[in-house]
């Protein structure tokens, strides 16, 4: 590669806020590009559709349910609800989208699941019969207050994510940690790894955890 191109690549990667979208362009050929993988798991010829349903499908019939003719809505809410109140540790929002496929049938039984009888994360998360403590928590608020309280987490509002901005901007959704905080489902870092950044020397873990 010519030297000026190398310099240009480094410059682009250092530009705040630009590097993550660029990395996310690696979707084609990634683990979630079902079409390119040549597998037969999904019928759609538009791989984006598998996770991103259109607002309204033209093929849908405009009829109301026969037994529920007073129904006013004509579309369903996908992965909605926040529960009756805060449901700490239970999957919400975009994490539900991940877990709707990763249920043990089609894809790995992720979060709350195991690979070959070994839980994904061992240390401190072995209590599988408790149901919530065997994996890294998701759908939890990660605030400055939480960070201060434990003393073991970096302040998400001021700590650099290593992705161009703060942890709060780059990794949280409305201040909440989701699967997407660490996983770039569009294949951010290396085929098959689907991480937002490399975890070499536990780099990804240490973005938030002070150890």
């Amino acid at each position: 590669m010519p030297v000026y191109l190398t310099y240009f690549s480094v410059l682009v990667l250092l530009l705040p806020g630009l590097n993550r979208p660029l990395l996310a362009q690696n979707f084609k050929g990634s683990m979630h590009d079902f079409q390119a993988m040549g597998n037969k798991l999904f019928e759609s010829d538009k791989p984006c559709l598998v996770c991103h349903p259109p607002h309204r499908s033209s093929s849908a019939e405009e009829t109301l349910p026969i037994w529920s003719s007073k129904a006013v809505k004509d579309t369903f809410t996908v992965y909605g609800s926040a529960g009756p109140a805060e449901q700490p540790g239970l999957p919400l929002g975009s994490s539900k989208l991940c877990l709707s496929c990763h249920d043990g049938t089609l894809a790995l039984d992720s979060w709350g699941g195991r690979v070959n009888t070994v839980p994904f994360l061992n240390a401190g998360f072995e209590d599988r019969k408790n149901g919530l403590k065997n994996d890294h928590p998701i759908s939890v608020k990660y605030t400055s207050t939480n960070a201060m309280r434990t003393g073991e987490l970096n302040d998400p509002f001021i700590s650099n994510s290593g992705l161009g901005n703060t942890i709060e901007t780059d990794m949280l959704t409305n201040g909440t940690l989701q699967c997407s905080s660490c996983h770039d489902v569009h294949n951010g870092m290396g085929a098959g790894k689907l991480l937002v950044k490399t975890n070499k020397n536990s780099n990804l873990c240490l973005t938030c955890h002070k150890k």
Partner: protein
Amino acid sequence: MYKLLSVILLSLILTSCYSRMVTRVTDENLVIFPAPPDTARIQFLTSISNSIDITGQRSGFMEYILGKDEGMPIIKPYGLSIHKGKIYISDTMLGGLVIIDLKKHTFSYFEPGGRGQLKKPINCFVDDRGYLFVADAERKEVVVFDNNLKYVRSLGNAKTGKPTDVFVAGDKIWICDINAHKVLVYSRDNYELVNSFPDVDPQHENFLSSPTNLFVTGDKVYVSDFGSFKIKVYTTSGTYLRSIGSYGKALGQFVRPKGIAVDRNDNLYVVDAGFENVQIFNKDDKLLMFFGGNYEGRGNMWLPAKVILDYDNLQYFQKYVHKDFKLKHLIFVTNQYGPDKLNVYGFIELKSKK
């Protein structure tokens, strides 16, 4: 003699010291679908998530002696089957089954070892003899146990297959295999493979992209094809008939179709984990109604997986039915997450006023 007496006394104390609470159904706490003013068809009856929901909580005295009973949870349920007052729930995180005896009020984990060891049981089915069939997606076999839960044998090719559901009807065992993209049909007598379908290329509309659940009636096989976002219907000999639904968020469509069941009127029930509801279609594939919905409270769902209908065990749930309704059949729906792991609904009709 004293030993025998003390054992009897102890058993009496232990059995009498559990109390079960049943919340009385009133007009105010009633959860029904569709919402008024439409005619109510389905009533949410109760949910089961922990052994305490079955055994009851210890009495004050026993709690003082033994401490608070935290119970045993249903952890991450997918499939279930019900037979003669017993509910069998395949729990992927337990790596085994939860077995609930509604008659004896017992709750236990079934975690067989040795040749019967389970790893990731997705679905299960109990046949009319009480034989238990478990589709294990990690072991990649269907494991068969007899009516005393003793290992009988396994079915399938673990090198090429990955069974996700199993159903026993007539003299056949029906298995849907997500890796083979087929329904495999075995003889119930000698466990020999007797048929498999469809045998077509992926471009064909008959093809099963990701079959995850199936239901067999007298003459039809319904397959929930997660990967084509449709329910595909075949004859029991494997001839393709039609599909139900399409991809999208409109009423009657699917984004994450999972468990399916057909009632005695040929109405089809389909779980959708994306909408977190169950849609019911009539035999002409027209949408009748839907129930559940994103979780906000009782009767809603949280990443639901399976739906099972039951006509034989109504007596255990009559106490939850509103006095104005008559219970026609039960509807069980599993939730993989959330506070309510197994939702029990009743298909009801209004009692006629005399």
